[in-house]
Every structure is written in C-alpha cells, then in structure tokens.
C-alpha cells in the first residue's frame, strides 16, 4: 500500500519534470496526460474511487483533448 503510493508519486514527479523540460509542446501535453493518468492510480491507492473516475475522465480525457485541439489550432493559424 505505502510502496504503491511511493511508486505512483515517483512516476508523477518524473512525468511533471518531463512536462516542464520537454523540447516540444506536444510532448509536454502528453506528459501532462500521463501525470493525470498516474494520479488516477494514486487516488485508487488512497481509496478514493470517486475522485479517480473524475480525474480519469476530466484530467486524462477532456483536458488533454482541449489542449491538443488548442495546439492544433495554434499551428493551423501559424501556417497560414
């Protein structure tokens, strides 16, 4: 139980550092999505399945989609 929390927390730190340090913005967005996904595991380990479901749907799903669409639109505007 405690080991699981440490594993998930360590992976979250790695994903967060990667999101800040990545060269391309796309990699940062994907790392943010991975961060949300790992925090879902952390919430499950902390016996909070409600929050885990919400985080999986909002954090890993919709927020990633909104960021990716924003990125796509920014690139589309830059090319024209």
């Amino acid at each position, binding site marked *: 139980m405690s080991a*699981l929390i440490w594993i*998930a927390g360590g992976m979250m730190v790695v994903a967060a550092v990667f999101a800040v340090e990545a060269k391309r913005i796309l990699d940062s967005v994907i790392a943010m999505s991975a961060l949300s996904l790992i925090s879902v595991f952390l919430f499950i380990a902390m*016996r909070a399945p409600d929050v885990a479901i919400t985080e999986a*749907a909002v954090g890993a799903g919709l927020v990633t*989609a909104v960021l990716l669409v924003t990125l796509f639109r920014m690139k589309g505007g830059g090319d024209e």
Partner: protein
Amino acid sequence: MRRLYAILVAAGLIYMLFVFLGTLPLYGKVDLSNRVSAHFLAKDVNSVDVKKWVEGDKQVPSREKIYGRKGFEDESANVVTSIVVNYRSFDTLGEVTVLFASAVGIGLVLGGMKRMGYGRKPNFILRVSTGILLPLIIMFGIYIFVHGHLTPGGGFPGGTVIAAAVLLLYLSNEEFVANMKTSKSLEGSMGSLYVIFGLAGLATGGAFLFNFLPNGVVGSLFSAGVVPLVYMTIGLKVGSELSGVVAEIHEEREG
C-alpha cells in the same frame, strides 16, 4: 523499436491499474456502520466507538440531539454522494452554476459557424472502433450517474464520460456536427429541474434542497430519497454542457 516501447508502457500502465484496483475493498463488503460522519457528529475520532453507537449505545452528544432525525447517510451506500447531495447540496448547485458560466464563456469566445477539420482522414481503426465503443461509453456514463448513490461516481463523472463519447464522435468523423439546440435545451431544463427539486424540498421539509423522499433500503436502486433524481439531473446537465463545450472548440469562424 518505438512501437515495442509504446506497447510495453501501455501494458505496464494496465498492469498497474489492476494492481491498484486490488487495494480497494469489494463492493458490499464495506462495513456500512463504520462511517466517518459518526466521528464528525461526535466531534471526536478517538474515544467514540462507531459500532456501539450505531447499535444504540449512544455516547454524548447523542445522534438525535444533533440533527433530530435518522441519519441522512444511512441509506445511500456511497457516502461521498451523501455528502455531495445531502449535506452540501447547495455547494453542488454552485458548482453546476460555475460550470454553466464557464460553458457560456467558451461559447461566447469560441463560437462559430463552420466545423473545424483536422485536414486528414481519420484512421480506419478509429472509425470502426468508434462504432463499437460509442454505445458502451454512453451506457457506462449513464450507469455512473444513475448508480451514483450506490457505487463510486456521480453526476459529474458520468456527464464527463458522455462528453468524452461526443469527443470521440468529433475525432472519428470529419463531417460530424453536434445538434447544439438539443444540448442547450437539455442543459437549461435539467438546471432548472435541480432548482425545482430544491424548492420542493423547501415546500415540504422547510429547507432548500431538503431530502423529501422516503429513504428506502440501502443498496437498492430506488433508495436514498432524492439523491438519484438529483444525480440524474446533474449528470444530464453536465453531459450536455461539456458536449456543448467539445462542440464549440471544434467550431471556427468562416475564413
């Protein structure tokens, strides 16, 4: 090599999910009487024995003295739902209002006439699997908010899952445009229905958003009074609202 790496990472994540799910207690095996709110009501987490208290050995201050009637929480199997829709229902109304305001803001800023295209044909696998997965995702979203008082979940996660289904439709079909009129009218009617439930509680119980229906048996679908009804309205409202947001970020002005 890269694909192998991706498959390994995905397999690792799926394995992790199963390992973490194993730490949860099974449904129905949780001791319903051992609840946080008894400690909360007693203002004491150390000396109060919750089991004895529920069996009738009331320690000061007693349950009846505090809120005068049987526990709100006794009838909904999912205690978080009890907190969100019974104790803090007014907060939830505020949250729904905040979500509504942000959806209106996105509609004002990003609204447009034309559907934005991604400029490429959607992948064959994406197109075919959307047809298979879409009904299952929508059904899962509806399950989450209908069973909000029994299992983890509730109105907000259920609505978000439905919005994710709409997002999948947008990704897999370049020509798909959601019917905004339906989503807007559903959103408005469900939001007012929540307030009407609150006013009905005010009329019958003397407090806004009072739980005025009979509580029923723990674990059955029609239990916990007004909670499933409120969660259904919240789920439909959040689902239509976030679907509208997903539709609006895919719109662009002409040119």
